[in-house]
């Protein structure tokens, strides 16, 4: 599948960019709590040197000019306006993934956070997804290490500051691979949601855990499953436990489907090097109206659903449906404020009701060994979940360590307890880390 190329000029020449298909949702739904912001952190072995990180941010940001944009509002759509502004370098707050003043003129849409030995990047989803943000962070870390006097010989997997900027890096992958006349995916019934009471604002709480990868791999190999398949199954199994503990029978009968949203990095499925959003979802589910499932049964279902759901033909149906909506002449001529209200209403009624949980796996961090030696660990804090889903989960693997973070906006930690207890009972050591 080659797809049609869209952008042909550099951002400096064009001066602005259309939002990619996935980004179009976020300006309409984002708020002080539902910030649509995610964080990726690198824990270095030494404290961060301010002067070096400042210089590194300047160099790296010039390599990623399509991130030097702010959100502008047109008559029909929001757009990204090139402004050459560097991201702010700030210190961490108590709560991660704080909102951006994205609708402020010339406001950058990503920030660099520095504290002690930690370098974090926080991106708003309007700009890019975890894949794009990780490329930026890797490039930033490389530049920072060079500036602090380290020598890195191998540069495989790093977008070097001096490397040429390809036009395809800022393309809208969704539009490129859109195919007309693809049948839309089937309709989904509303999913069951965790019955927890929400926290007072600011709601987000992060529970950080470290999992022994070696032991986890031994375990998953025994089941002939991947880490993602295994952990998604644990997610569903933990949700089922809470479902069974719930007393309100009426609610349970109404909504008996437990469904998890698992983002898929489309760059790995299709030949695109875009640095903007390019992920879609697979939605593994179990229907509890059919009965209670054992863990092994769930794993079998998840294994099948993740493999068939992530198949390019199947997932392409979501892509074509989403781009199809955007291309509809009726939707295109609607003024922006009406469009925003409509998107927000549809999201509240349908989007946020479709899944019971979210699990993002950013995969294994691949960086040169010389860089690996300077870094302790990586961490991903997921975007704050909406008030239906309440808990989201993100993970990343670095060396023999899997970091799993739960973003929770409810008062209960019962879900995390069930999830991590399942792992420890299966013989995988889990360490809960201090919440900074």
């Amino acid at each position, binding site marked *: 599948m080659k797809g049609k190329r869209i952008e042909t000029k550099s951002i400096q020449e064009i001066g602005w960019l259309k939002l990619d298909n996935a980004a179009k949702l976020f300006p309409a739904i984002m708020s*002080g709590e539902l910030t649509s912001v995610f964080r990726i952190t690198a824990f270095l072995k030494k*404290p*961060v*040197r*301010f*002067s070096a*990180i*400042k210089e590194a941010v300047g160099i790296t940001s010039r390599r990623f000019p399509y991130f030097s944009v702010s959100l502008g509002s047109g008559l029909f759509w929001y757009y990204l306006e090139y402004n050459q502004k560097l991201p*702010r*370098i*700030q*210190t961490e*707050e108590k709560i991660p993934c*704080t*909102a*951006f*003043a994205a*609708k*402020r003129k010339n*406001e950058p849409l990503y*920030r660099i*956070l*520095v*504290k*002690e*030995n930690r370098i974090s990047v*926080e991106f708003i989803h309007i700009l890019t997804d975890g894949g794009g943000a990780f490329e930026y962070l890797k490039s930033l870390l490389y530049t920072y290490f060079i500036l602090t006097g380290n020598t890195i010989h191998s540069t495989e997997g790093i977008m070097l500051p001096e490397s040429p900027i390809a036009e395809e890096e800022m393309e809208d992958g969704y539009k490129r691979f859109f195919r007309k006349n693809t049948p839309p995916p089937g309709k989904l019934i509303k999913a069951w949601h965790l019955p927890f009471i929400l926290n007072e604002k600011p709601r987000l709480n992060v529970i950080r855990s470290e999992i022994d990868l070696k032991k986890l791999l031994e375990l998953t190999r025994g089941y002939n499953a991947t880490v993602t398949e295994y952990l998604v199954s644990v997610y569903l199994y933990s949700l089922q436990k809470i479902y069974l503990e719930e007393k309100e029978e009426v609610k349970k009968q109404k909504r008996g489907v437990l469904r998890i949203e698992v983002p898929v990095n489309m760059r790995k499925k299709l030949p695109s090097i875009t640095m903007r959003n390019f992920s879609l979802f697979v939605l593994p589910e179990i229907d509890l109206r059919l009965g209670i499932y054992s863990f092994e049964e769930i794993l079998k279902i998840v294994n099948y659903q993740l493999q068939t759901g992530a198949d390019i033909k199947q997932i392409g149906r979501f892509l074509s449906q989403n781009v199809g909506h955007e291309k509809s002449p009726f939707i295109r001529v609607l003024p922006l404020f009406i469009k925003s209200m409509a998107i927000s209403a549809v999201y509240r009624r349908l989007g946020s009701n479709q899944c019971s949980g979210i699990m993002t796996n950013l995969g294994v961090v691949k960086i040169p060994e010389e860089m690996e030696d300077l870094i302790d660990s990586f961490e991903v804090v997921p975007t704050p979940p909406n008030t239906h889903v309440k808990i989201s989960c993100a993970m990343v693997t670095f060396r023999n360590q899997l970091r799993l973070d739960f973003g929770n906006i409810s008062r209960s930690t019962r879900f995390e307890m069930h999830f991590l207890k399942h792992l420890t009972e299966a013989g995988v050591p889990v360490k809960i880390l201090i919440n900074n």
Partner: protein
Amino acid sequence: MSYCANCGVELDKDLISCPLCGFSIGKATVSETNNHSEYYPSDIILAHKKESRRHIWELTGIISFSGIVVCTIVDFVIHKSLGWSLFADTSIIAAWICLTLVLLAFRKYFIIIPGMLLTILTMLFLFDLFSPPVNWFYGIGLPVTIALFVAISIITILWKVAHFRGFNILAIAFLVLSGFCIVSEVFIDKYLSDKVDIRWSAIVAVSILPIALVLLFIHYRMKKGKRLDSYFHL
């Protein structure tokens, strides 16, 4: 090399404060400092909201000023003197001052409420002055406006101090409203006939009382503190 005691980052030797959090290091010269409003990500959001309020204030100022000019010119051209435009101009100015208080003294209720009271009293006093020979300001305008602001102040204070804002606040608001109606009728009767005869306000109070009781019952017994914002959200 020195370290910021707050952020823990390594700083250059000539820095006197941390550029990330503003924490003072206590050295000789400054080479890198940020605007204080940019130390934390959430400061930007607050600054943005303040800017937006200022833009609304400026825009409404231009619209109000244009309205005053248009009303005054039209009135003067048609009648060769100023008549109805005095009322229109005074109303526009009062409305704009009230909006200014809400936007610029954002959520500072101890400034907003007395400021609005003074503005409205001045507006009513001027209305009274523009329409001789009827003198209604001291008889009705002043006491009823003060009663209304006392009622608003009571509800605002309860709203601020209440741990759980739900139907309980709505019930108290209804009760305060019925009290306001009684006070208003007393002053209206006194102004019109010099004789107090409470009628309609008593009917309002008697009708409101059961509603308030039902709301209190819902709040404390049935809904166990249901929040107003989530209950009424669109």
